Each structure stands twice: as structure tokens, then as C-alpha cells.
């Protein structure tokens, strides 16, 4: 009887979108690796599509498990989970297997596991636990603690050499914003980013002259307030420092492949056979899809392996090439609806913990989705993060599944929680 009622409270719209995205991902993985001479059925276990089916099936087991577990468990043990995965991140740093330049994998027989994927979930739990009771984020100490919760795993993952995944944690700033963080913390980094990119695109002296002129103008307009003049001069110094630091950051802080990815964003035609290859081929794949696409298994870019990493980070290319603009727009629309739905669910939670958790899930999904798609169409440097639910890979599918279905579990349970209060 109780179970019956629980089912009815599940948000089936989210479940349906989830299922649809996973299905599209599975079919696209089959297409991405399709080779008429080798590939057999989509169920062939030696192919990525067969393996992905196993991952999907095990994701189903996870969903069932979550369905039966008491939701209070996540609330109660969130710090424990967080601690365990922080520990795992440290261990993997010491003993993990290095794949493609980053030490972020455990190898268990033939399967590999990436703890950083699951750390996202645990970090959201911890953040929810911390912010759930309602905290004042104007307080520097509270803010530092909250930020520390995700800056710690982020730092560890950065040490593994997986900048893409580390970057994902910055999305949690959205959660802080929702919980009362001053918008300056979002606007300021964005402005700095814009200035950074402008420096790459525009002549540096011209940029600095513009800043100086604007500063003088600002000072002229606010001569009566000493404080304002101080702020304006401070800002100007900061901006000029950023501009001046670009070269240093580009050549001394970033790794060579990261430098290339950023210069490529500014000028995609540099070295089309070398570092620009991925982005160029990815854009060609998507662009050649046209309005309606070339059809299932008919993508030439896909079939002839012009796009590297196509079943993982560049799975969106397959959608773009074989189903065209209608296909890509449909996928984007599904993601947008999913995100809005998750936000809606988050906002209707009665417990602070569940609500913060919901925003965390939305932030992570949003970041993955936006960055991954931007990267395939050349709007963002190649960051190496998967497209949720579609990209090939067990760790990523499982981690997103857990995140999403734990939220649904909280949602279904909210009446109970209310009852207990």
C-alpha cells in the first residue's frame, strides 16, 4: 500500500526524459562505432553499444535499489559518503591508473571506475547537508566552509590532471547563489573571463587604452565620492592586471594541450590537421547533418572515424550528423525541459536539504550539458566532459542516474518528511 503511493508520487516526466536520452545515447553509440564489416547487432557485447547496454541495465538496478532504500539514509550519511570519496580521490591519486594523461581511474579487472564521477553526487549531498538548515552566506566563514566543500574535491581532481571534471564543480556556485550568495561572486568571474577572451581577440594596447579612458570617465563622473573613485581605480587596476596576466597564464600556468584548446577557440583554423582536428571534425560532422540529418548509420564523418572520442565526449556529433538540426534541437529541448523540471522539483521540496540537493543536481547537469554541447560546436575549448545520459561510459551514466533518482526519491518522500516534522 505504501509502495503503491510512493510510485504515484514519482515524477514520471523526468523518468521519461531520462529514459529517452539514455535510449538515444545507446543508439548513437552504436552508430558512432558502426563498421559494416565488423559490427554485428547493437547487442554485441564486444562493442561499445553492447557494453553500454550492460551499463544501462546496471543503472536500472541502481534505480531499483534507490527505490527501496530509505531516503533518510542519504541525509544521515552524507558526510560519510563525502569523506569516503575524498579518501578515494586521494587513493586514486596515489595508486590509480593513468589514462590519457590523467590519473583518475581505478582498474578492477576489465572494468575501470572513475571515483571523480561519483564525487559530484557526494559533494552535492555534503553541500546540501551543510546549507540545508539555512545559512547566512554573507558570513565569510560560512561562505568559506560552503565553498570549501566543493573546492576540496575540485583541487584533488585537478591534481589528477582532469581539468574538465574539476571545472564541473564550479557550477555549484549556482547553488550558493540560490542560497543567498551575493551575485557579485558570479558576475565578477564572468567579467574576468570576458576580459581574458577579449585580450586574446583584441589588440592588447587598444584594450588597455579603452580601460584607462573608461576609468577616467568614471572618475570624472563620481568625483564627489572618494569611495566610488577608490572602487573604480581598484577595478581598473584589477582589469589591467588580468589583461597583463593573460600571456603568463597562457604560457606558464596552463598545460600545452590546454593552451592549444584556448587559442583554437579564438582561431579555429590554426593547424586543422593537428590540435584543431577534433573541433574542426566535430563541427563538420554536426554541420553536415543539415536540417534533417543523413539518417541512422549514414553519417560519413561518424562512420569513417573522422571525429575522435565520438562515442564518449563527442557523442553529440552523431546526433547532429545523423538527425540534423531537428535532432539536435530536440535533444537540447529535452535537456532544457529536464533542467526546468529538476529546478521545479527542487523548489517544491519542503526540506532545505532536499532543495539544496535538487539545485546541486540541476547545476551539475546544466554545466555538463552546456559545456559539452558548446565544445562540439566550437563555442568552448575542448574540456573532456561527457554529455549526461548519452555519452558512452559506466561511471558517468551511473553517477548521473544516482544523482537524478535520489532527487526523485526525495521528491516522492516529501509528504513523509512533512509528516514527520
Amino acid at each position, binding site marked *: 500500500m505504501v509502495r503503491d503511493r510512493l510510485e504515484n508520487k514519482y515524477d514520471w516526466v523526468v523518468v521519461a526524459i531520462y529514459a529517452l536520452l539514455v535510449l538515444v545515447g545507446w543508439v548513437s553509440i552504436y552508430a558512432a562505432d558502426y563498421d559494416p564489416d565488423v559490427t554485428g547487432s547493437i547487442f554485441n557485447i564486444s562493442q561499445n553499444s553492447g557494453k553500454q547496454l550492460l551499463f544501462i541495465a546496471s543503472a536500472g538496478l541502481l534505480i531499483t535499489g534507490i527505490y527501496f532504500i530509505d531516503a533518510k539514509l542519504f541525509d544521515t550519511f552524507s558526510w560519510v559518503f563525502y569523506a569516503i570519496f575524498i579518501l578515494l580521490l586521494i587513493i586514486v591519486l596515489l595508486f590509480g591508473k593513468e589514462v590519457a594523461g590523467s590519473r583518475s581511474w581505478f582498474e578492477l579487472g576489465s572494468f575501470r571506475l572513475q571515483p571523480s564521477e561519483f564525487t559530484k553526487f557526494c559533494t552535492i549531498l555534503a553541500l546540501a547537508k551543510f546549507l540545508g538548515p539555512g545559512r547566512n552566506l554573507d558570513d565569510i566563514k560560512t561562505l568559506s566552509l560552503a565553498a570549501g566543500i566543493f573546492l576540496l574535491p575540485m583541487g584533488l581532481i585537478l591534481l589528477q590532471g582532469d581539468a574538465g571534471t574539476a571545472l564541473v564543480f564550479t557550477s555549484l556556485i549556482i547553488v550558493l547563489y540560490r542560497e543567498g550568495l551575493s551575485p557579485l561572486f558570479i558576475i565578477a568571474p564572468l567579467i574576468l573571463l570576458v576580459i581574458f577572451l577579449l585580450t586574446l581577440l583584441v589588440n592588447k594596447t587598444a584594450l588597455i587604452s579603452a580601460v584607462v579612458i573608461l576609468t577616467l570617465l568614471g572618475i570624472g563622473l563620481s568625483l564627489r565620492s572618494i569611495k566610488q573613485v577608490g572602487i573604480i581605480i581598484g577595478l581598473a587596476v584589477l582589469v589591467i592586471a588580468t589583461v597583463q596576466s593573460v600571456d603568463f597564464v597562457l604560457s606558464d600556468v596552463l598545460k600545452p594541450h590546454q593552451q592549444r584548446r584556448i587559442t583554437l577557440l579564438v582561431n579555429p583554423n590554426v593547424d586543422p590537421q593537428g590540435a584543431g582536428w577534433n573541433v574542426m571534425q566535430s*563541427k563538420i*560532422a554536426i554541420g553536415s547533418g543539415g536540417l534533417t540529418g543523413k539518417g541512422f548509420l549514414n553519417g*560519413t564523418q561518424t562512420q569513417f572515424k*573522422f571525429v575522435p572520442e565520438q562515442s564518449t565526449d563527442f557523442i553529440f556529433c552523431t546526433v547532429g550528423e545523423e538527425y540534423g538540426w531537428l535532432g539536435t534541437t530536440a535533444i537540447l529541448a529535452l535537456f532544457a525541459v529536464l533542467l526546468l523540471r529538476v529546478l521545479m522539483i527542487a523548489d517544491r521540496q519542503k526540506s532545505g536539504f532536499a532543495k539544496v540537493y535538487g539545485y546541486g543536481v540541476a547545476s551539475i547537469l546544466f554545466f555538463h550539458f552546456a559545456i559539452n554541447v558548446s565544445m562540439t560546436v566550437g563555442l568552448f575549448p575542448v574540456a573532456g566532459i561527457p554529455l549526461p545520459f548519452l555519452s558512452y561510459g559506466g561511471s558517468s551514466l551511473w553517477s548521473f542516474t544516482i544523482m537524478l533518482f535520489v532527487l526523485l526519491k526525495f521528491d516522492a518522500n516529501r509528504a513523509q518528511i512533512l509528516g514527520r516534522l
Partner: protein
Amino acid sequence: MNERAIVIRAAVLVITFILIVRLFAIQVVTDDYKLAAENNFRREIIQYPYRGLMYDRKGALITHNDPIYNLMVIPREVDLEDSTVVIDALSLAPGDYTERYASARRFSRSKPSIFERQISPTLFAQIQDELSRLEGYYFEARTYRAYDHNSFGNALGYVGEISGRALRRDTTNYYRQGDYVGISGIEQEYEQVLRGKRGVSIKMVNARGSVEGDFRGGEFDTVPVPGQDLQLTVDLELQRYAEVLMEGKVGSVVALDPSTGEVLVFHSSPNYDPSLLSGREFSDNFLQLQRDTLKPLFNRPIQARYPPGSMFKTLQALIAMQEGVLGPTEQIYSDLTLIGDLAPAGYYDVIKAIQKSSNNYFYKVYRRVIMQGDHPNAFVDSRIGLEKWKAYCHQFGLGVPLGIDLPNENSGNIPSVATYDKLYGANRWQFSNFYSVSIGQGEVQVTPLQMANLGAIMANRGFFYTPHFVRQIGNDSLVNYERRIVGVDSSYFNVVVDGMEQVVAAGSGRRGFMRDIAICGKTSTVENPPYPDHSGFMGFAPKEDPQISIAVYVENAGQGGRAAASVASLLIEKYVRGEVTRPWLEEYVFRGEFF
């Protein structure tokens, strides 16, 4: 709803919208990426057609195709450690490899370029196994021209890789870099039928460059169409004989079949082996031929301009009779006062004047043609006469290109009013300024082909067909060439032809006389100061059933009755009788002592 919740939702929608717009831009608005995708996976493999062969009039093979190989390279796939194998196999100079690899890479990393061109079958057999194993190299089979006859290059022309300039000038957009194309001679003139049609097979290649299969199941593939064979009008046996006779001499031999205009012999001496200009050593050989002081690349039969000399007198007689200023049997007294002469003084009619080659007679005849009394002023009268006379010459194919099917035909020179206006000023010249034209000297210049054609006009008694080299293209018999009438009555021709018969029977050409084959001809001893005279002969045979007309020029060989008449007579005998019965005359020609 909370303000911040709205801001977050708005951010989601705005970013999704930006991505959708971006996707619309690259997927729907621009075609760039569709083209790029096609370029990525499509590779056109050109299948070169077989170039048409050439046969002589009896079916003997003149030129055919031999296999040759290009070593192609696809820089993307090359492992630079293999370079030593390639360097050894091709015996490359140090630095060559790097340079060629770099230039291929500049052209394209993923598309093939020629690494080494025109590898002979022998070398190919030696290096094929070794090089085919290497990634990124493959051989492309082509054919090049080979010849069954080591001369005749002046008519055949040659085939070579198309030049950048020719490629840019090709308005039909047929040719591509690396195509072979006929560059001169018959190869150039009949390029369109000889070349055939290139085939292309479009393959799909993957990112590594290996072929994945036919593009759209071969829907757009085309099969190469082989070029059409040509049957030439040339008699290879006779041509060879002409070459043998002209060995060691400089000049031309042209023989035509007067009844069709077909070219039987077309020899420029010295000649060269056309295989020198086919294949790898083209540049070196071409340079060497170009530097040769005897100019073997100069196609004398259609490019050399000689004064016609005495053979021109036949034409002068015809024009004068047709103009009504000379009677066929009219006796004119030659007193040897007007112009230097070898013929004795006395009365001459047309036949005797041609037989004896009387200079003073033709001085008077030509003056009658030029100064017909149409105008009291001698200067104006000369202008009118010269214009009339020039029109006849053009009718005879002189001073204009005959239109033979070879490129770069020279039209020779027939002086006109403009010529002398320029030399002396308008109305400041008259007959006496150019009387030497009466005997084929002075400003008048002709090509050997034009003289052979004059022989054909004599043989036909008043018409000719445009000289040509091709009888049959593929299976289609050519060619109805139009009969071109020169506008002089055949009765006048009979008179001149009788005179020409006498030249060989009892005149300057008697060295070429045969009892059973009546040769009608006229010798020329062409003045060429300060150098020795050229020896010339123009004629046809047999008189009543002409089978061959011929013109021979032997440069600096003295009297026309010696070198040229002998060569012509031997060739006529060989063609008409099928064998040569005068070894002593052959011996005389071979010895080459004509003074």
C-alpha cells in the same frame, strides 16, 4: 517564485537558445560543413584512358603506348623511418627526399601527390615489392608514347604532361594537373580524338586514408573511354626511304597523293627520334635538340620559307595565259639583255621556256602580267597588275596557309602592294623594282608543302585538295575534303605539263628521267647568297595517271637537277613501281657530292 530561482531558469533557457541558434547556423544556414564532409571522405581515383594509336596508310603501327609508373605519396600516412628504403630504391640524391616530401605535404597531407614520375617498367619491377609494402606509398600506372619508327617526330609531335600555362588556358575545363596532352604535331592537332575520356572512380576513405568502399555504390563512377586510333595517310615505307635518301642532308621532302591531298611523305631533315621526347628524359633531350645548330625541331616542310626559284615559272606561265597576255604557242624572243640567264638566246614558246628555264622569257611574261596597260601611269599600272597576280597566287595556296592538319603552318610570302609601298613608298615602284619575282626569287617565299601542293595542282590540271595526314579516325573513314579550284583553264595546264615533261625528259631534270614512268617536274637552283644555292624540285608522275606529287628541297646542294631531282625521281619510282631499279642514282644521292 523566488527572484533568484527565476534568474537561474532564465539562464538555462538563454544558454539552450544560444546553442540552438548556433546549431542552426552551422547545420542549416551554411553549406561549408557539408562540403567539408564530402572533401573529407571522398577520394577521386582517376583512371587514365588509353591514348589512340597511329598507323600508316597500309596499317603499319607508328606509335603505341607503353606502361610507365608514378610513385604516389600520401604524406599523412607516411612513416618517415621508411625514407631510407625509398631513397635507396630510387637512388635519390641526399636532400631530395625531404624536399619532395615537404612539397607533397604543402600540397595536401591527406591527398596523394606524385613522388617520383615515370618510372620505367624495368625499375618498377625491381622496386615494386619493396615500396608497395610501405604505408602511404602506392604506384599509379600510366602509359607513355612509344614509337615503332625512330624518326618522323616533326609530323607526329609529342605527348607530355600538361603545363601550368596550358592548364590555365584550357577553357573546356577538361584537363587536370598531371594529365598528358599532345603538345605539337598530329598529337596536338588530333588531341581531342586521341586522348579518349578520363574515367573516375570515387571511393570513400576513412580518417586514416584507407579506402572503405565505392561512393554511393559507384553511382558517379565513370569508365575511361579509350582514345580513337588514327590511320595516317603517310606511307611509312616511302617515308623511311625518303629519310634514308636525305641522310646527311638538310632540307625537306613532301609527297602528296594529288587525287586526295593525302600526305605520303613528310620529312624534315635532320629529324629526331620522337621517343626522345617521351618519358623521363624529355627536358634534357628537348634542350639538346633545341640547341642543335641544324635545328631538328624546325619543321621544315611547313615552317621553312625558301624562294621557289625556277619551279615558280610554271605558275607564271599559267597566270599569264589565263590573263590572256600570253599565247600557249606564242614565240617570244629572248636576247639575254634583261636578266642573267643560262638558257641561250632565241625564240621561246611556253613549253621550250619551261624546258630550258629561260629567265629572260619569264621576265617578259611576268612584265606582261604586271603591266597590262590598264592605266597609263606605269606605277599605277604595276599596282593593278600586282593585285591581280597576287589573287592567283592565293588561289594556288601560296602566301596563305594551306590548312594542313598540323599546328604552326607558315604561309610563306607573296609580295603585295603593301609590301612594296613599305619598301619604296606608295606609287614609287613598278615592275622593274621586283622583276626577280618573275623567276621565283626576290620577295616571294614558299614552303616545301606549298610546292608539293603546286605539283598536285599540276597533276590535277587545275585543282587540289587540302593536304592532310589522317585517313581514318577510329572506324570512321575520313574525310571529304573539298576540291579547291585554282581558276586557270586545264588547257593551259596541259601546255605547262608538257613543258614539265620536257624538263625531265630533255632538260635540267634529266638525271631523274625514266623510260617507263613519265615524270613531269621543274628544277630550281635557288639563289641563296652568300651561301651555296639550294637544290629544289617540284613535280608529279606519271604524266597521264598521276599518283604522286612531290617537292624536294636540299639546302646548299647546288643545282636543282642534281640532289633534288634525283631524290624526287627515286621516291617516285619507289612509289609508282614499288621498287628502285637505279642503284647508280641511289649511290649518287648517298654519296652526296653534288658540286
